[in-house]
């Protein structure tokens, strides 16, 4: 029999500490939707998505109500569109993005991911058309998210793609300049991208996946912050780690329950639970505040990397025991604009891009939701991407860049995206040129640690 304090603990987690299921993402394969006629292919895509995900939102809402745990987002990820559209003769894939947008509308989801290409070793015809279509596609749609994988430990870094994506990000910002460059908030570049990530903007349904899958992302920074608060300022790191593990176990168990229940009701196989602690712009739901609770005055000061390493490791240890299938990104998310503590730390000058980059070395998934001055040269953006990709391939981990060169904005300005995407202070970038480096092109070879066989 459950005891009252356990029941009250769960209720407090949900109602006072912002514990929720961040997303139920239905991954759907579109590999059977290829056609030499683009129009026919798009019809197949629309029909398949709306058929498979027809009950996704309703099922999510039912589970939310019956278990009393908020499920914030219901989303869809699909096979990278470059693979599906390539069979057609189309020379621009914006129409495919519009079809995805319509399907997302019809299903009632708030984002659909998979306007994507995997180009870590090179481009096919379809990859190139897709990447060239990104700025227009993101301007023409509201719910479509795009991602490009341009490096892996096994392949190295495709520096031509790195250069290209710097340009594409600039163009995407310009095309959505009137909406604070929100297009860039829906575009992420990766190294070592996972194929079952439920979180946007990087979600797509990988080629090794089955017909469909239910993937779950959880969110509980507030819960973790409160357990650290409860052990007090004098508890040593062994105790802090232990308490985080227990909290992570509890919240991941709920993720597992929701995943299994959604899978059963939708008759879609259970894919994975992603162990990332996703923050939101709401106060009390911040990863930066967890770090500060450990005893650092402001997130970004010396000690931040160590604090984050402990946090992420403890979350993984606790969470991995709670779910039978862990996957996705399962790292710390530090989306600056979506975390109130990160925003404050940037504004007060204590958190810089360089420190965020250091944090990505140990566990954070990447430079995420960072606004930079609109006049930043595209080569500098490419160089930022190259640095992140290098960290990813050398450390055998996923890294990502989701950066917003906000047109007309300069350091210290605020870019407001609204809602879950939050608001970002424009951050300083190094103003020395990286152009000659970026224009070399070619590939950075795979590192020695790729040679494992």
């Amino acid at each position, binding site marked *: 029999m459950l005891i009252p304090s356990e029941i009250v*603990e769960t209720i407090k987690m949900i109602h006072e500490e912002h514990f929720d299921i961040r997303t139920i993402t239905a991954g759907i394969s579109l590999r059977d939707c290829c056609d030499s006629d683009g129009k026919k292919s798009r019809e197949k895509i629309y029909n398949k998505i709306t058929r498979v995900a027809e009950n996704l939102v309703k099922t999510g809402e039912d589970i939310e*109500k019956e*278990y*009393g*745990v908020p499920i914030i987002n219901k989303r869809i990820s699909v096979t990278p569109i470059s693979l599906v559209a390539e069979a057609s003769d189309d020379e621009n894939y914006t129409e495919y993005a519009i079809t995805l947008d319509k399907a997302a509308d019809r299903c009632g989801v708030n984002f659909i991911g998979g306007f994507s290409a995997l180009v870590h070793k090179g481009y096919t015809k379809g990859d190139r058309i897709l990447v060239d279509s990104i700025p227009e596609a993101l301007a023409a749609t509201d719910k479509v998210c795009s991602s490009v994988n341009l490096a892996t430990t096994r392949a190295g870094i495709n520096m031509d793609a790195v250069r290209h994506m710097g340009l594409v990000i600039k163009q995407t910002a310009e095309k959505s300049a009137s909406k604070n460059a929100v297009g860039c908030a829906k575009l992420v570049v990766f190294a070592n991208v996972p194929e079952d990530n439920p979180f946007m903007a990087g979600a797509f349904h990988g080629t090794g996946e089955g017909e469909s899958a239910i993937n779950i992302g959880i969110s509980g920074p507030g819960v973790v912050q409160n357990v650290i608060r409860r052990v007090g300022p004098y508890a040593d790191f062994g105790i802090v780690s232990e308490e985080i593990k227990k909290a992570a176990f509890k919240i991941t168990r709920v993720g597992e*329950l929701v995943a*299994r229940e959604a899978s059963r009701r939708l008759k879609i196989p259970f894919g994975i639970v992603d162990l990332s602690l996703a923050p939101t712009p709401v106060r009390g739901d911040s990863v930066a505040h967890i770090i500060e609770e450990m005893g650092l005055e402001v997130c970004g000061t010396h000690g931040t990397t160590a604090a984050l390493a402990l946090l992420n490791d403890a979350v993984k240890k606790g969470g991995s025991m709670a779910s039978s299938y862990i996957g996705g990104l399962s790292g710390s998310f530090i989306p600056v604009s979506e975390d109130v503590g990160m925003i404050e730390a940037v504004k007060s000058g204590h958190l810089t891009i360089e420190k965020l980059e250091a944090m990505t070395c140990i566990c954070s998934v990447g430079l995420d939701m960072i606004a930079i001055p609109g006049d930043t040269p595209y080569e500098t953006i490419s160089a930022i991407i190259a640095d992140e990709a290098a960290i990813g391939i050398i450390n055998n981990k996923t890294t990502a860049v989701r950066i917003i060169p906000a047109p007309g904005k300069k350091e210290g300005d605020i870019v407001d995206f609204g809602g879950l995407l939050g608001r970002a202070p424009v951050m300083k970038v190094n103003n020395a040129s990286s152009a000659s480096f970026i224009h070399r092109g070619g590939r950075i070879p795979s590192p020695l640690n790729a040679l494992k066989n």
Partner: protein
Amino acid sequence: MVKEEKTNSKRAIITVLGADRVGIIAGVTTVLAKLGINILDISQTIMSNIFTMIMLVDLEKAIKPIHEIIDELESEGKKLNVQVRLQLEEIFKTMHRI
């Protein structure tokens, strides 16, 4: 087999939180009786000055679907000026029991 049994669970936890006053238990249990919901266990305590009542109930013979039961309990809670929640037992068991 165990999994199937769990997912078809018809047991739920009702929690009532709020300022103590006369008639809270009477109000909530009247609604439950009307809906054909059997109370399996009940405990009541004051936690940090907040009236806390926890009930384990069986929905097996309930005459309405769970969503309507949740709505009716919520509106009864509004009348009594307390928060009344019904959640399937599974979420608590999953979180606190291995």
